[in-house]
């Protein structure tokens, strides 16, 4: 019992916060590429921070409920219809067995998050259900495959979890049509780039290249950077800005490799990565400098709000699905 997938869309992936503790073996963390939108979807249902949910790229998903429960939809607006009636953005809503949820294509942004009360049930592999296609890990079949037609997303029945809909306050809902100002901490080989290259990076208007994916957002600018050289590969993480010899930066994202050999200019604020991930191809992006202390303080605020929130109004996944 759960949600039956009628149309999977071009790339819909089961995700949770990610596969931690295995990076020394080359295993990518994976997880939602837009952490805020994903965290809000679970938060609106009082789910645990770790609750598995669906990341829907571009839209095109159609599903039918087999149980009465509550869903929450955040991220890119996709003109969602519940039995033909519009669903409010960044909100939770109830769905009854037999009802159909249809998502059109993203009107702005790139990815939506669909959470279900209590989370989607799936068997973790290396501690996580997060789908990583290239590594062949996670997902419903544990082999890294995206959702396909006929799949079932197992979840509990929770008809009475809430008595009313609730949405995120407007100030938390980004306008994905704007060109984001992404905050960056200079670091890694940043000093060796020198002040002139750093200034060029912050002054340039960068554009998202079409071949960007969950592994990295490739940027192009009129004036490429001139990177220093780096001889030995070293550990990298999501948010790392690598600059290959041709001078066009790559921002590593959720599915990134664990080690890299390109010179590193700095690190995108973890809370700005999601905004970058929502930019479609050719979208303009600007970068502004950030201080590490401020970034850490904001991260702590974010984690304590979302990780400590779960009130347990939704019946917990454990025990109720035997």
């Amino acid at each position, binding site marked *: 019992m759960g949600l039956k997938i009628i149309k999977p869309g071009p790339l819909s992936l089961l995700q949770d916060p990610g596969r*931690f*503790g*295995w*990076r*020394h*073996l*080359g*295993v*990518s963390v994976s997880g939602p590429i837009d952490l805020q939108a994903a965290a809000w979807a679970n938060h609106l249902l009082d789910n645990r921070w770790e609750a598995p949910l669906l990341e829907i790229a571009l839209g095109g998903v159609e599903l039918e409920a087999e149980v009465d429960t509550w869903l929450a939809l955040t991220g890119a607006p996709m003109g969602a219809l519940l039995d033909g009636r519009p669903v409010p953005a960044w909100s939770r809503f109830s769905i009854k067995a037999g009802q159909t949820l249809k998502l059109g294509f993203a009107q702005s942004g790139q990815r939506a998050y669909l959470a279900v009360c209590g989370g989607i049930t799936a068997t973790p*592999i*290396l501690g996580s259900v997060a789908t990583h296609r*290239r*590594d*062949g*890990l996670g997902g419903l079949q544990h082999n890294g495959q995206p959702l396909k037609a006929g799949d079932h997303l197992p979840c509990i029945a929770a008809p009475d979890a809430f008595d009313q809909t609730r949405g995120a306050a407007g100030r938390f809902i980004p306008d994905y049509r704007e060109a984001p100002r992404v905050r960056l*901490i200079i*670091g*890694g080989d940043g000093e060796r780039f020198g002040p002139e290259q750093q200034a060029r990076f912050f002054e340039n208007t960068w554009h998202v290249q079409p071949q960007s994916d969950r592994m990295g957002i490739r940027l192009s600018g009129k004036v490429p950077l001139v990177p220093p050289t780096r*001889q*030995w*590969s*070293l*550990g*990298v*993480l999501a*948010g*790392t800005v690598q600059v290959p010899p041709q001078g066009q930066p790559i921002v590593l994202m959720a599915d990134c*490799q*664990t*080690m890299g050999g390109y010179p590193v200019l700095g*690190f995108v*604020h*973890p809370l700005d990565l999601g905004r970058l991930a929502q930019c479609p191809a050719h979208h303009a992006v600007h970068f502004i400098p950030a201080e*590490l*202390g401020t*970034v*850490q303080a904001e*991260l*702590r605020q974010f*984690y*304590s709000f979302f*990780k400590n929130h779960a009130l347990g109004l939704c019946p917990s996944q454990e025990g109720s699905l035997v």
Partner: protein
Amino acid sequence: MIRIEPFGAEALMLTLADTPKERLPGRIAQLADNLSQALGDALIDLVPGWTTLLIHYDVMQYSLSEIQARVMPVIEDWHQESDDLERVARLHEIPVWYAGPDLESVAKACSLAVEQVIDLHSRREYRVGAIGFAPGFPYLGELDERLVLPRLASPRVRVEAGSVAIAERQTAIYPQASPGGWHVLGFSAWRLFDPQAEPPCPLAAGDRVRFIAVDEATYRAEGGQAAWD
């Protein structure tokens, strides 16, 4: 000279030497063990490189100055230890069927006979400097100077799982079929990554590796499945 610097908001990069050294991977593995004891559950991931160790830590437990204060004494103690104090390095003997698609071009580029290439590659004992790029992909060093070549000008679309390959001063084994830009000398039937196994990867940074030349029948008998045209 040891450097400690923030690497983004949630990680700390330790640079432990300017260039890789013979015993360094084993020493870094030892430091990783010491740090994981000292940091407990504030430690999320520890990623060794040839000269570096990346510490991914929980910002809910430590700020930058706090994590630095925890890490510093561990590094100082480690730095004062003798060079002999490394994690006990296991030796893995990995059978290789030397029949890779680049064997002849490597021989030609290095002005060697094919047999010499095989001999130079399998004669040496290597160290696992790091595991990365893909799950279970080991970077092994250092390769004999006479086999040093740059990466392929244009990477192959598909490199077979188990391919034993070289580039620059390193050699490696591809755990799964993937695109790749290294020169493939041969094939190993070893499974380098299995998420269901404990541990998922038989190799660890700091371990020693030796390649043993075997014939195709032995390779096939061990389950090797490489096939290429």
